[in-house]
């Protein structure tokens, strides 16, 4: 900005100490500054930060703020998309390193718009936000059949199924998918989240989903809560 040019414009990331750099990166993420995020990730790696710490303590923490502000009506889709895009830039650097170091995984989600429905903006947004929160996302695209969902869940050893629908005429298909999972005896193996403009909590309950998620930020929060519950159950035996 022209009026407060000078020292504010001359932040050199490499001159900031770890604490200041972390906060600056979270703000840069908030502003969707992809190149700055990539630069910051490289600096932290050079300083010996573990890739997993950069992911969780900087990027995921920063996206949490973005998600909260989206939920609270402070940020809207354009800002969230830019932030997710910046996050992706950082993730592209971290992903191979995370795999090498055997870092713990947040979880894996299979997501798709249901059969008969070709609307994908909401679904894409959830996918981006989930990736932003550190989840691995397998996107099956639009017009997805029950069999495709189930096949992908098994193949990918996923934790979560996410289904989206924008039409009142296609949302009942979610129940078909869940009923098919029940028939196969695999319903309880997965966390099932549903979303889309015409849905509501009541509908989610009626069709047997684990939760209805009002927006992408809620989807991320819900996924985190269910995954940690699942982990707790597993460690409890």
């Amino acid at each position, binding site marked *: 900005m022209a009026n407060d040019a000078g020292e504010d414009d001359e932040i050199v990331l490499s001159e900031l100490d770890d604490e200041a750099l972390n906060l600056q990166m979270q703000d840069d993420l908030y502003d969707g500054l992809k190149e700055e995020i990539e630069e910051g990730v490289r600096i932290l790696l050079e300083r010996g930060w573990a890739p997993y710490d950069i992911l969780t303590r900087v990027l995921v923490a920063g996206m949490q703020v973005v998600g909260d502000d989206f939920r609270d009506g402070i940020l809207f*889709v354009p800002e969230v998309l830019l932030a997710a895009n910046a996050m992706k830039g950082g993730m592209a650097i971290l992903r191979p390193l995370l795999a090498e170091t055997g870092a713990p995984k947040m979880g894996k989600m299979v997501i798709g718009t249901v059969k008969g429905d070709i*609307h994908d903006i909401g679904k894409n947004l959830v996918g981006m936000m989930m990736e932003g929160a550190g989840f691995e996302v397998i996107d099956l695209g639009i017009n997805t059949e029950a069999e495709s969902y189930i096949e992908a869940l098994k193949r990918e050893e996923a934790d979560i199924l996410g289904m989206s629908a924008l039409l009142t005429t296609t949302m009942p298909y979610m129940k078909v998918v869940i009923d098919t999972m029940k028939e196969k005896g695999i319903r309880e193996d997965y966390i099932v989240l549903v979303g889309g403009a015409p849905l509501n909590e009541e509908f989610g309950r009626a069709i047997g989903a684990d939760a209805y998620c009002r927006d992408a930020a809620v989807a991320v929060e819900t996924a985190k809560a269910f995954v940690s519950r699942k982990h707790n159950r597993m460690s409890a035996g």
Partner: protein
Amino acid sequence: MTDALTKLLAQRDWLMADGATGTTLFNMGLQSGDSPELWNVAHPDRIARLYRGAVDAGSDIFLTNSFGGNAARLKLHDAQHRVRELNRAAAEIGREVADRAGRPVVVAGSIGPTGEIMEPMGTLAYSSAVEIFHEQAEGLKEGGVDLLWVETISAPEEYRAAAEAARLADMPWCGTMSFDTSGRTMMGVTSADMVKLVEKLEHRPLAFGANCGVGASDLLRTILGFVAQGVERPLIAKGNAGIPKYEDGHIHYDGTPELMAEYAVLARDAGARIIGGCCGTTTAHLERMHEALSTRAPGPRPTLEMISERLGGFSSASDGTDGRQPRSRSRRGRRRG
């Protein structure tokens, strides 16, 4: 030459637009996932029936069955090469129905969103969006629509692209956005933002407003938001018949014809001159809306309290225009230019 809508607006205080297209076509047997636009050629009789339903219920304006008729949407059905043909057919059927109505009826060529996210957030370039809309506009024009009707738009860039397409096609147009996220569009546009957007355009719409969204109350709050900006341009209110509910495996909209009649009268009192429905609005709803608009005397501009009392509450406390929306948090680091 004065266009058909301007002529009608000069004669009448209010005009009634149509109701739901998608909902009605599904009731005629359209399968989920199929493109409604293909029916313009495959089942022209059903499309004529859809249009006549609105005309017989008293609509002065109806929208053509071409909402998803742009190349970006038709691509999902492998029909992107049929844009011109499908739009022309949608318009021709409409022209014929309107010309036989026995009174002036405006055929509005519906143009819905591309479904793509525009640059820099997404991948769709402004120039591509203009091209996509322009192709569709030319098809609708060839088929004889009176004007173009851009609807359910969320992004300001996409609205601008549609305006530019209308200019290139040398057609008058109307354009509404869908305010479905805490009183804003999905892309964060408030009612006040839209007024500024419209008035800055080179090729301005004859009328503008809101369609779809979250229900009748929210839609009227958006209309009041437009009015608060002191607009002179005619306003359009095209709200859904309530909110979709799931019961016994079926979906229905909970807005009764009586509720929509109440909504129509309140919309007029709020300042809208073109009033119609959107998803879930059947001919039964339209008939009651028409009756109410014809028989009930105009009243004072409703307050938000009156609206929520008569139509139900709002989906969010603020619509982003009243200064009561959540405040942006203060930054911990320093902002860079």
